């Protein structure tokens, strides 16, 4: 009896997810790689800023917070009496100087002092680690809002790629420890799976919370419905981001409360070093207000408790109650993303998992091209995907290393110095794109990886030659933060060199190697 033919099944969920995963990943991957890499460096943005400003002192015994704030108030009353508000940042383990910001006649003004003796500190103009931090969510040279939309779209595609990747990977636990080396696309797939699965909780968390941090931009409709008036909406957004708007002055003179006493009271409850920031609004006016923010150490909620006082009577204006569930959820999401609560060991875990994310994206991109290269008729445009892979995956680390070189080599007095450091990044990155377009792909990979390795390896010697904070000096001085940057440069140089060594010198070499293996087996 003839067997009845079974009806053909349509493409299953997994097969459908394969297409979604490959294309959502490919479209977003170059941008997401840049976001992941610069975001990973941002976990150390304060440390990097310190390294990039070798003129900054290393305060070993700063003044007590109440004394420091009292001196700041006296200084700012003389220097910026007309400013609507002063925001004073107190020194911490990561930020050795104390700074104040206010809006003056020429825009936002900033003053940094040595917290040991309040002497002004002048350091070279640089964006420091803040450049990478800003780049990872608003890029550069683009209108800020448009760039944030672009980053949001890439993050959403990344989230889709992650979820479809989990559905696609049917033997996620069985294949957990599998790696088959030297087998072309199969090896790239195993490496991609390893980077993805090992850091999966982190990859999902960092992508989702990244979208949440800019949720009022991406999904403004709920806020618009709840707060139809623009002014109340702005107020709500300010509250959500834990940055209350400065109110209006009363125009009636009144003496400012003793702010040092408020800080001392807060430190009794929050512990020494518990106050991170102090904002004083309309000092000397009847509508004066003082806000103290608690340092985030050890708490997930990034928008930690704050105390609000009447700036004349010193009476508490906030209720002192815990934030609502919405503010708490938002604060924890932002806290999880930024990792400001993390001590040094957790920060290194964050950084390691961030690098694993970069590895996941990089191996995914290489796998995409390696699979298609094996086809009898490789798709058109594949060569350009390969060249873009080189320029972004290998070229970006070169450009980032160039940022550190520019910081040490550009003259301190150069007009627009901070901008030129950033221009150096993009000029070098453009050069890497041109290089990748002109050289054979296999050689371009190796040359750019070796160049990145060389530039990073020479950063600490360059630092020693141009400043007094070389690795040896930092070691002898017990300056772990600056030493950490130098050692990280060496570690990353070794990583890039190890990758470059494993890559074949040419496509011909890959074929020869495959043939040799076939003969041997």
């Amino acid at each position: 009896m003839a067997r009845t033919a079974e009806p053909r099944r349509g493409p299953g969920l997994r097969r459908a997810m394969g297409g979604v995963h490959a294309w959502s990943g490919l479209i977003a991957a170059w941008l997401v790689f840049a976001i992941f890499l610069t975001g990973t460096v941002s976990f150390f943005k304060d440390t990097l800023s310190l390294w990039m400003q070798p003129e900054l002192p290393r305060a070993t015994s700063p003044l007590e917070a109440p004394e420091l704030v009292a001196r700041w108030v006296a200084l700012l009353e003389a220097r910026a009496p007309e400013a609507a508000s002063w925001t004073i940042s107190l020194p911490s383990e990561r930020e050795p100087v104390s700074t104040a910001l206010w809006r003056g006649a020429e825009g936002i003004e900033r003053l940094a002092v040595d917290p040991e003796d309040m002497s002004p500190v002048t350091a070279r103009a640089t964006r420091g680690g803040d450049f990478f931090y800003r780049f990872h969510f608003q890029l550069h040279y683009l209108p800020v809002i448009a760039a944030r939309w672009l980053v949001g779209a890439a993050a959403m595609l990344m989230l889709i790629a992650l979820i479809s990747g989990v559905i696609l990977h049917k033997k996620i636990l069985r294949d957990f420890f599998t790696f088959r080396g030297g087998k072309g696309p199969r090896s790239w797939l195993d490496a991609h799976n390893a980077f993805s699965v090992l850091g999966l909780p982190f990859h999902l968390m960092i992508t989702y919370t990244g979208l949440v941090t800019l949720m009022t931009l991406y999904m403004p409709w709920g806020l618009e419905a709840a707060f139809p008036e623009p002014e109340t909406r702005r107020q709500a957004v300010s509250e959500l981001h834990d940055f209350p708007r400065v109110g209006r002055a009363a125009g009636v003179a009144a003496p400012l409360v003793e702010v040092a006493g408020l800080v001392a009271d807060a430190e009794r409850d929050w512990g020494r070093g518990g106050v991170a920031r102090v904002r004083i609004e309309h000092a000397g006016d009847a509508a004066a207000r003082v806000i103290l923010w608690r340092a985030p150490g050890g708490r997930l909620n990034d928008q930690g408790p704050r105390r609000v006082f009447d700036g004349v009577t010193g009476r508490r204006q906030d209720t002192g109650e815990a934030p609502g569930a919405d503010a708490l959820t938002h604060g924890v999401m932002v806290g999880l993303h930024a990792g400001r609560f993390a001590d040094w060991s957790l920060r290194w875990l964050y950084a390691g998992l961030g690098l694993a994310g970069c590895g996941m994206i990089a191996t995914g991109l290489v796998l995409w091209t390696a699979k298609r290269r094996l086809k009898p008729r490789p798709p058109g445009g594949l060569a350009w995907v390969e060249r873009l892979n080189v320029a972004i995956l290998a070229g970006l680390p070169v450009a980032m290393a160039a940022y550190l070189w520019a910081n040490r080599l550009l003259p301190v007095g150069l007009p627009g110095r901070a901008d030129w450091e950033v221009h150096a990044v993009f000029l070098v990155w453009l050069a890497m794109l041109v290089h990748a377009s002109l050289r054979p792909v296999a050689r371009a990979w190796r040359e750019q990886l070796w160049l990145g390795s060389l530039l990073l390896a020479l950063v600490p010697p360059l630092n020693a030659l141009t400043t007094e904070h070389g690795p040896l000096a930092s070691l002898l001085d017990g300056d772990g933060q600056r030493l950490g940057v130098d050692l990280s440069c060496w570690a990353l140089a070794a990583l890039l060199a190890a990758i470059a060594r494993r890559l074949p010198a040419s496509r011909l070499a890959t074929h020869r190697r495959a043939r040799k293996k076939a003969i041997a087996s």
Partner: protein
Amino acid sequence: MMGWVTPSLCLAGFLGLALGGRRVRRRIGVTLASRAELGCRVVGVALLVLAAGVAIGHRGGGVGLVAWCGHLSLGAGLVYLGVIRRERSLSPEAAPP
């Protein structure tokens, strides 16, 4: 001192889970009875759960869970690298040239 306990438990837990897998054992040249295989898996999972308890007890509910997740990835990554290294030491031809 307490900071090392969670990563060590995670490492030991994943080692147990790796030894509980037939494919991994074959690759690293380890033979186990089927009862021992189940034991490895049970002990592996128990150690990971214990690591969660230690992390939460040490750092609190929120940060403890974050630290535990990070240490899970670290432990799994180290075992992954260890398996590759062991496999290559057993059969050098498995290593890429």
